[in-house]
C-alpha cells in the first residue's frame, strides 16, 4: 500500500520535472498535481477491482453487460439497429442548422476514409501511414479533370476511385516484401513525396495555391448547392461504402485478409496468395479514399496540398484505432467521436491533436481492440 502511494508520488514528481523546462515552475507544478490525482485515482480503482469485494461487484456488472449484449444479439435488434440509425440520420438534418449539417457531412467524408483505411490496417494488418495520399489522388483527379477538361462529377468519382486504386496497387507492389514497421515508414515517405509533388508541380497542381473553382456535382438540371444536398449525397456514399465493405469483410476475401494478418506463413501454406491479397487490400482501401477525395473536391470546390498532410493520416488512423480495428461499427463510432467531440469542446481545440496522440498510447495499453472491437481482433491483440 505504502509502496504504491510512493510510486504515484514518484511518477508525478518525475513528470513535473520533465515538464519544468517547457512549462515553467507554476504550470508544471499544477500539471504534476493533476497527474498525481490521476495516478492515485487509477491505483485506487485498480486496487478496488482486484480486491475480493471489487471482484464480486465487477463480475456482477460484467454479467449484466453480457445479458444486455445477449439481448442485442437477437436478430430483430441486430437488423433494427442499423435501420434506426439510418432513419435518425435521414431526419436529423431537417432539424438542425447548416453549420451542424456541414459537421455531419465532414463526419461522412471521414467515415468513408476510415472505413477504407480499416481494410488495410484493420483487416489486412498492414499499417499504411500514406493513406491520405490516395485521398489527395481522388481530390486532385477531379480538380484537374474538371477545371482542365470539363469532366463532370459522376464519371470523375469512378475515375478518381480507379486512379487511387492504381496508386494503391503501385504502393502495394513496391512495399510487398516489407513487414510492419518498414511498411509504415515507406508509406509515410510515399505521402511526403506526393505532398512535395503537389506543392512543386505548379503547371498541373498549381502548387501551394491549390485549384479553385471546381464544379459542384449535378443531376440533370439539379445542382447540388445547399449543405443539405451534400449531406444526403455523402450519406448515400457512406451507406454504399458500409454495405460493400461489410460484404467484402464477410466474403472469402475478408477471411483471407484476416488469415494473412494473423500469420502470413500459415495463410500462404493454406493456399492464400499473400501477394495478391496484399495488393488487393491496398487497391481496395485506396479506392475509397479516392471516392472521398472526389467528393471533398466537389463539396468545397477548392483543394490545396494543405488538406492532405500527415496529420490527416493520423486523424483517420486514430478513428480506426479508437473505434476498433477491423470492426465496421467501431470505426464509424470512432469517426463520429473524433469529429463531434472536438466540436463540443471548441474551447480546447488546440489540444485536439495532443489528446489524439495520448489516446492512441492509452488505447494500445488498456484497450487495444478499440471501443467496439471485432471479436477476432480482440483475440489477436491480447496475444
Amino acid at each position, binding site marked *: 500500500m505504502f509502496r504504491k502511494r510512493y510510486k504515484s508520488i514518484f511518477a508525478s514528481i518525475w513528470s513535473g520535472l520533465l515538464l519544468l523546462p517547457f512549462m515553467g515552475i507554476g504550470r508544471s507544478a499544477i500539471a504534476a498535481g493533476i497527474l498525481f490525482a490521476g495516478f492515485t485515482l487509477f491505483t485506487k480503482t485498480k486496487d478496488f477491482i482486484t480486491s475480493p469485494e471489487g471482484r464480486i461487484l465487477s463480475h456482477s456488472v460484467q454479467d449484466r453487460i453480457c445479458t444486455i449484449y445477449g439481448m442485442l444479439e437477437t436478430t430483430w435488434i441486430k437488423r433494427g439497429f442499423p435501420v434506426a440509425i439510418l432513419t435518425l440520420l435521414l431526419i436529423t438534418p431537417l432539424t438542425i442548422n447548416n453549420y451542424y449539417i456541414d459537421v455531419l457531412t465532414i463526419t461522412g467524408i471521414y467515415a468513408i476514409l476510415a472505413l477504407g483505411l480499416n481494410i488495410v490496417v484493420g483487416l489486412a494488418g498492414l499499417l499504411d501511414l500514406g493513406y491520405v495520399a490516395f485521398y489527395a489522388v481522388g481530390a486532385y483527379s477531379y480538380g484537374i479533370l474538371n477545371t482542365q477538361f470539363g469532366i463532370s462529377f459522376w464519371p470523375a468519382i469512378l475515375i478518381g476511385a480507379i486512379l487511387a486504386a492504381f496508386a494503391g496497387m503501385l504502393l502495394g507492389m513496391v512495399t510487398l516484401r516489407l513487414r510492419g514497421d518498414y511498411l509504415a515508414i515507406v508509406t509515410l515517405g*510515399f505521402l511526403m513525396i506526393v505532398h512535395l509533388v503537389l506543392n512543386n508541380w505548379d503547371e498541373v497542381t498549381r502548387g501551394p495555391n491549390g485549384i479553385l473553382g471546381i464544379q459542384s456535382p449535378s443531376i440533370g438540371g439539379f445542382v447540388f448547392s445547399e449543405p443539405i444536398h451534400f449531406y444526403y449525397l455523402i450519406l448515400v456514399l457512406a451507406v454504399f461504402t458500409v454495405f460493400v465493405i461489410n460484404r467484402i469483410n464477410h466474403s472469402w476475401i475478408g477471411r483471407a485478409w484476416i488469415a494473412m494478418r494473423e500469420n502470413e506463413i500459415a495463410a500462404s501454406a493454406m493456399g492464400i496468395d499473400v501477394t495478391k491479397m496484399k495488393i488487393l487490400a491496398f487497391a481496395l482501401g485506396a479506392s475509397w479514399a479516392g471516392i472521398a477525395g472526389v467528393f471533398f473536391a466537389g463539396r468545397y470546390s477548392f483543394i490545396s496540398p494543405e488538406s492532405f498532410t500527415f496529420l490527416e493520416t493520423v486523424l483517420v488512423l486514430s478513428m480506426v484505432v479508437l473505434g476498433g480495428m477491423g470492426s465496421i461499427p467501431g470505426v464509424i463510432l470512432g469517426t463520429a467521436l473524433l469529429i463531434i467531440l472536438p466540436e463540443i469542446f471548441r474551447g480546447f481545440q488546440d489540444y485536439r491533436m495532443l489528446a489524439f*496522440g*495520448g489516446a492512441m498510447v492509452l488505447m494500445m495499453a488498456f484497450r487495444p481492440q478499440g471501443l467496439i472491437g471485432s471479436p477476432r481482433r480482440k483475440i489477436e491483440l491480447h496475444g
Partner: protein
Amino acid sequence: MLLQQLINGLTLGAVYALIALGYTMVYGILELINFAHGEIYMVGAYMTIISLSLLTATGLTAKSLILSLCIVMILTMMSCAAYGLTLERVAYRPLRSAPRLAPLISAIGMSIFLQNYVMLTQGSADKVFPHILPAGGLSLGNTSLTYLQIFIMTTSMFLMISLHAFIRKTRLGKAMRATAQDKKMASLVGINIDNVIMATFIIGSVLAAVAGFMVAMYYGLVNFYMGYVAGIKAFTAAVLGGIGNIQGAVLGGILLGVLESLGAAYISSEYKDAFAFIVLILILIFKPNGLLGERVPEKV
C-alpha cells in the same frame, strides 16, 4: 563548389548518423522502430535554446561562452535521457509482448503527443538560436569550413568511437550485444533485460540530444515539427547501412547527408526532402538488409 557541397553534406551526415544510431540500437534490441525518436531530437534542440536563454539571463553566457555551452549540452543530454526513459516506460514497456502493430501505433501516438506538447507550451513559431558563436573558419578559395562544422564533425566522430568502444569493451555493452542476439537466453545468464533496454534508450536519447544541440547551433532555427522529417531521414540512414548495425548507421548517415546536399545542389532543391525517401524505397526493394546488414532469416 563540389568540395563545399561535400563539406556541407558531411556535416549534415554526421547529424543524421547520430540520430540513426538511436534507431539502430533500439531496433537491434527490441526489433521495434522507435517512431518517437525524432521527437527526442526535437526536444533536445528546444532544451538547448531554453537552457541557453536561462543561462543568458543569469549572465553566465557573457562571462564564459565555452562553460555555458558545456552546461547547456549537459542539461540537454540529461533531459533527453529522461524523456527517452519515460517514452520507453510509458509507450513500449507495457506492450513488450503485444503483437507488432500495437507498439507501432503507440509510438506514433507518442510522437504526435510530444510534437503537440512542445507546440502548445513553446508556441508554433520558430525559435531562434542567439548570435553568440564566433563566426569564421578555414577557407580555401571558394570553399570554407566553419569552426562550427569542424566542431560538429569531430564531436560526432568522438561520440561514435566512444559508443563503439563502449559496446565492445564494457560489461553493459556486452550485455547489450547478448540481449540483441537472444533476449531469453540473455536473461537466463543473469542479464537484467529491463536495465539493458533502459540503457539503450538512454544512450540513444543522449546521442539524439547532441544532434539536436548541434543542429540548433548550426541552423539557428528550431521548430516543433523538425523531428518528423529528421526522424525519417535518420531512419533511412539506419536502413541504408543495415538496421541493427552500428557501423552501418554511421555509414548510412554520412552517405545520406552527402547524397542529399549533392542532390539539392545539382538536381533540384525543391525536391531535396524526396531524395531520402527515394533512396529508402530503392534500398528496401533491391537490398533490404542494407549495405552492411547481415541476412537474417525470418523467424517463424
